[in-house]
C-alpha cells in the first residue's frame, strides 16, 4: 500500500511528493490529464518549448526566501540564470522606472525618480521584510496609499505585481508583499522550460520508489471509519493509501467528497462558495531569428496609472507584462516573448460551453484583437515588435480551465480577502484527519506561495518540514 497518495501533479503536488519521498515514504501521484505539471507544464511548437505559468522566480541566492526550500527539493541544480540588476522595468504613461535587486538599492533607485518619497520607500522595503500573518487582515492598497503620498508611486511599486490579482478592496498586504519581496532579493529565470522543474521533482519521487501516473482522473474518495481509505479513478481503478493530499482546486475536491459522512455540508459549501481570482490572457510570440537581442529583465507597461483597476475592466488592454525567454542555444538574440495581461472571466462568457480548438471565429477574433493591443503596448519598449513576430500562440482563462481544471480559469486560485481573512485563507487540514490540502488556493499563489504551502502540508505528515524549513 502507498504511504501517501497525491491527487494532482501541479507544482504543489509534485513538491509534496518529492519532500515525502525524500523522507522514505512511498508516494503515488495521480494526474487527471495527459501531461503532469499543472501550471509548470510546457508545450512544444515548431521546435520551441513554450511555458504556461513559469516566467521568473525570486529569492534563490543563499540566505534568501526560496534558497533553502529549493535546495531541499533538489531544484537549485537546475540551470537558473540571474536576471539583470534592474530586473523589472515599469513604464506608466510613457515614463520609465526600474526596480533594482536588493532592498536598499530598490528603494534608492526609485528615490531618484521620487526624491520626496525617499523615507516612505525605505519604510516600504522595511515593511516588506517584516511581513507576518497579521498582514492577512491588512488591505494592501490602503497600506500603499497611507505609505506613499504620491499616487504615481503607488502604481509604480505595484506595477510588477501582475503576478497576483490586484484588487483594491480585497488583496491582503500579506499576499502583495510575498508577490514582490523575494524578487527584490534576487530574480532568476530558468534556461529551459518548466518541464525541467517538473521532471526533476518526478525523478525524485521515482528514485525513492514512488510513481506518477497520468490519465488517472480521480472521481471519488471513499471514507471508512472517519478516514479516507481509497480513491477511485474514472477508469474504475482504485488506490489505497495511509495519507491523502489534494492538489486540485478545493471546490472540485469537495465534489469528489460527496457521500463522505465526516465532511459536512457547511465545509463543502464554504469551499464551493469561495470566489476565484481573475484569469490571464497570454500571447506567446515566436520571434524571427536574429532580429531582437535577449533582455534579462521583465517590462510592465501601462497606458495610465491604472494598475489597481485594470483587473476589473481590461478592454481594451490597459497593461501588459513582457517576459523574454532565455535563449537555449547560447545566442544573444531571443526567439520567444510572452505578453500577459489580466482577463476577467466575464470576457469569456460567450464560450463557456466550448472546448479547446472548437470555440469558433469570434473567439479567434477576440484573441487576435487582444494580441494586437498587447503588442501595441509592448512596442513602447520594443519598437517594431509586430514585424518581428513569426508565429503567435494565445491562451485565455478558458484554456486554463480546460487544461488545468481551474474553475473560471482563475490564474491564482481562490481569492484572498483582507476583510474576511479568517474565511479566505485556508488551513491545509480538512475534516478528515488523513486528507490534506496543498496548492495555490490554500494560502498563497505563485511559485513561492505554493512551495511554502507544500512544506506546511508535508509538516502534518512528517515532523521537521515546517513552513520556515
Amino acid at each position, binding site marked *: 500500500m502507498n504511504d501517501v497518495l497525491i491527487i494532482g501533479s501541479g507544482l504543489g503536488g509534485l513538491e509534496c511528493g518529492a519532500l515525502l519521498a525524500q523522507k522514505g515514504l512511498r508516494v503515488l501521484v495521480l494526474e487527471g490529464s495527459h501531461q503532469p505539471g499543472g501550471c509548470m507544464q510546457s508545450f512544444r511548437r515548431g521546435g520551441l518549448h513554450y511555458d504556461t505559468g513559469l516566467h521568473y522566480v525570486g529569492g534563490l541566492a543563499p540566505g534568501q526566501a526560496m534558497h533553502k526550500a529549493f535546495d531541499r527539493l533538489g531544484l537549485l541544480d537546475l540551470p537558473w540564470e540571474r536576471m539583470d540588476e534592474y530586473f523589472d522595468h515599469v513604464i506608466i504613461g510613457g515614463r520609465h522606472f526600474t526596480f533594482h535587486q536588493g532592498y536598499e538599492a530598490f528603494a534608492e533607485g526609485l528615490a531618484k525618480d521620487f526624491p520626496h518619497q525617499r523615507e516612505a520607500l525605505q519604510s516600504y522595503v522595511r515593511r516588506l521584510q517584516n511581513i507576518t500573518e497579521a498582514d492577512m487582515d491588512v488591505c494592501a492598497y490602503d497600506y500603499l496609499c497611507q505609505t506613499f503620498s504620491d499616487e504615481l508611486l503607488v502604481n509604480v511599486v505595484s506595477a510588477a505585481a501582475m503576478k497576483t490579482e490586484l484588487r483594491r478592496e480585497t488583496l491582503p498586504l500579506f499576499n502583495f508583499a510575498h508577490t514582490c519581496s523575494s524578487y527584490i532579493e534576487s530574480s532568476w529565470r530558468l534556461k529551459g522550460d518548466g518541464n525541467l522543474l517538473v521532471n526533476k521533482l518526478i525523478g525524485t519521487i521515482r528514485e525513492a520508489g514512488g510513481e506518477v501516473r497520468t490519465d488517472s482522473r480521480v472521481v471519488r474518495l471513499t471514507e471508512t471509519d472517519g478516514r479516507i481509505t481509497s480513491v477511485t479513478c474514472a477508469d474504475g481503478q482504485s488506490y489505497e493509501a495511509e495519507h491523502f493530499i489534494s492538489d486540485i482546486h478545493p471546490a472540485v475536491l469537495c465534489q469528489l467528497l460527496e457521500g463522505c459522512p465526516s465532511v459536512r*455540508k457547511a465545509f463543502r459549501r464554504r469551499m464551493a462558495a469561495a470566489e476565484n481570482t481573475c484569469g490571464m490572457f497570454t500571447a506567446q510570440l515566436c520571434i524571427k531569428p536574429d532580429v531582437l537581442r535577449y533582455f534579462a529583465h521583465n517590462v510592465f507597461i501601462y497606458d495610465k496609472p491604472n494598475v489597481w483597476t485594470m483587473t476589473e475592466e481590461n478592454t481594451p488592454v490597459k497593461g501588459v507584462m513582457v517576459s523574454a525567454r532565455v535563449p537555449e542555444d547560447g545566442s544573444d538574440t531571443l526567439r520567444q516573448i510572452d505578453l500577459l495581461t489580466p482577463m476577467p472571466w466575464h470576457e469569456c462568457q460567450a464560450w463557456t460551453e466550448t472546448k479547446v480548438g472548437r470555440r469558433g471565429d469570434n473567439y479567434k477574433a477576440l484573441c487576435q484583437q487582444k494580441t494586437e493591443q498587447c503588442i501595441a503596448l509592448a512596442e513602447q519598449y520594443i519598437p517594431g515588435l509586430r514585424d518581428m513576430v513569426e508565429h503567435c500562440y494565445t491562451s485565455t482563462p478558458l484554456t486554463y480551465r480546460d487544461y488545468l481544471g481551474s474553475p473560471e480559469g482563475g490564474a491564482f486560485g481562490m481569492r484572498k480577502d483582507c476583510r474576511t481573512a479568517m474565511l479566505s485563507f485556508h488551513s491545509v487540514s480538512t*475534516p478528515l484527519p488523513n486528507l490534506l490540502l496543498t496548492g495555490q488556493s490554500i494560502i498563497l499563489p505563485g511559485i513561492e506561495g505554493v512551495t511554502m504551502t507544500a512544506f506546511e502540508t508535508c509538516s502534518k505528515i512528517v515532523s521537521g518540514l515546517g513552513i520556515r524549513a
Partner: protein
Amino acid sequence: MTREEIIAEINAELAEEFEIDEATITPDAPIYQTLELDSLSLVDLIGIVQTKYGVLISKAELPTIKTFAQLYDYIEQHQK
C-alpha cells in the same frame, strides 16, 4: 429582521449545514458541543453567519459566544 426571525432562520440553517437535529438547538445549549465544532468547522460557522447576515464575528469576540443565545445576540446587534 426581528430576533424571532433570526432564531428561526439560523437554527434551520445550522441544522442543515452541520447535519444535526434542529431540536437539539436551544438558546442555552453549548454551541461548540451541539454543532460538534473544532477549529476547522468553527470557520464554517463564521462563514455561514457572514454569508447569511453580512456579520463577521471577530477573532477577539469569538470566545464570548458560547451558547446559541449569545450567537443570536451577536447577530442581532451587528446585522446591517
